[in-house]
């Protein structure tokens, strides 16, 4: 709610800025324009940097709305004004696409893997997924309705491990915070969450037990700034954008 209000205010502000600069800079550099990007919350660390880069190079100001992919999908379906949608899984992009809300098609721009988040220094000596089934260990997962929770269940199935979670958190950030506060001994989150959090240590999950999350991006039909939206996506897919994503723990395409 507050975020939408902030977004609306920011757009108003931008519109005012645009009106001011539009006339003055008609002859020289391209005038400043704005876009709004709806992105999965796991993308925040990388996309904030990409947004800053876009403003520096192309004079396009990006306003982000970071939420769980489900929430974003619902907001787009309810007619929220947005130019770009970046989802944490293909399922939600497909939902938006089949509702006829995309302009063109979506492109995969990054992959993410899962990792076990443990307390700093790994005091419980957790080294494999199988360790998570140890008695007396407090393990927290994301709810299966959340993409991260769905992936966590898949990776546990592949490793033939049964975990009795203490809680099924409603966001992947809930898993992270329970581990970083020391209330849970371990949780399964994205590699990028651990890279950017700094509050927890990560225990890698071998590739043959791991799941790859695909992140698609697309321009939305409701866009009021198609060229700006395309500039953003081009930057995400460029080598610059990919370097930023990799530094935040994602795998490039």
């Amino acid at each position, binding site marked *: 709610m507050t975020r939408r209000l902030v977004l609306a205010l920011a757009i108003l502000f931008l519109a005012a800025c645009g009106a001011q600069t539009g006339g003055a800079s008609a002859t020289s550099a391209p005038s400043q324009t704005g876009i709004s990007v709806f992105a999965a919350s796991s993308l925040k660390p990388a996309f904030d940097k990409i947004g800053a880069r876009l403003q520096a190079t192309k004079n396009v100001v990006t306003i982000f709305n970071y939420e*769980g992919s*489900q*929430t974003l999908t619902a907001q787009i379906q309810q007619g929220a004004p947005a130019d770009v949608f970046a989802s944490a899984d293909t399922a939600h992009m497909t939902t938006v696409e089949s509702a006829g809300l995309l302009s063109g098609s979506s492109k995969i721009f990054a992959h993410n893997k899962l990792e076990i988040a443990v307390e700093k220094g790994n005091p419980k000596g957790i080294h494999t997924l199988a360790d998570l089934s140890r008695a007396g260990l*407090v393990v*927290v997962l994301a*709810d299966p*309705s*959340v993409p991260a929770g769905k992936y966590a269940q898949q990776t546990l199935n592949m490793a033939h491990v049964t975990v009795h*979670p*203490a*809680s*099924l*958190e*409603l966001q992947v950030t*809930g898993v992270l915070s*329970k581990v970083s*506060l*020391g*209330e849970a001994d371990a949780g399964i989150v994205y590699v990028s969450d651990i890279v950017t959090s700094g509050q927890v240590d990560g225990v890698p999950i071998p590739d043959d037990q791991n799941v790859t999350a695909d992140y698609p991006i697309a321009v939305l039909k409701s866009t009021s700034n198609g060229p700006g939206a395309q500039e953003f996506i081009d930057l995400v897919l460029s080598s610059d954008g990919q370097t930023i994503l990799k530094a935040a723990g994602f795998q490039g395409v």
Partner: protein
Amino acid sequence: MSQGRVPAALLALAGLGLLFFLLPLLGLIVRAPWDQAIGAIGSPETGTALGLSLFCSLAATAVALVLGIPLAFVLSKTTGNLRSVIRALTTLPMVLPPVVGGVALLLAFGRKGLVGSILYQAFGIQIPFTTAAAVMAETFVAMPFLVIAVEGGLRSLDPRYEEAARALGARGWMVFARVTLPLLRPAIFSGAVLCWARALGEFGATITFAGNFPGRTQTVPVAVYVALETRPESAIVLSLILLAVSLAVLVGMRDRWLGAL
């Protein structure tokens, strides 16, 4: 009814206010998938969440009664700065965002918390993620409603009854149990009902402090949130059940109980 005496402007604004409450309710009722409602009500998940919600909210109300009535009593007898401090502390959870309350509970009663760390190291007790944690979260958020109602009741109490009892030789505890408490019954009842209703709808503190696990900490409001993302129809049905239960109780209480506020 003396409806004719209400100025038209007030009546119009009151109508708007009522409409503001009514429209969201209508939205739920209109959008509810009535054909699936029966199945959703009968499903084991709904039953588990509803049972847990009833248990937790009643337990929270019981704890609030045991701790809140004495708190209100003490509050009504103190004066000056001490009273302001107690009053502010007691009503803090009413203005605190419940999620913040949940974080505060974690920092106090979590495994690494102020008190929780002692419990964990000395007795191996872990409160977060248990049903007890859900009850504590609900008590934290709902008890102020009871304290305020009871304190209001105490304030409007005629002190002559207590004075008469004392003049007849009754001691402090006897006066409280035999004179004050019976006189307070309407205030206690209405406070308990409000406290229970608030506990029943508690979400933020519960999800933060107790987490989400079916049958253990997944109360109806949490179940509604989970379902909202994947099964919106059952979320609406669950919300309606919660509404119906609360409404039935509130209407059943009638004015004579809630009127004490």
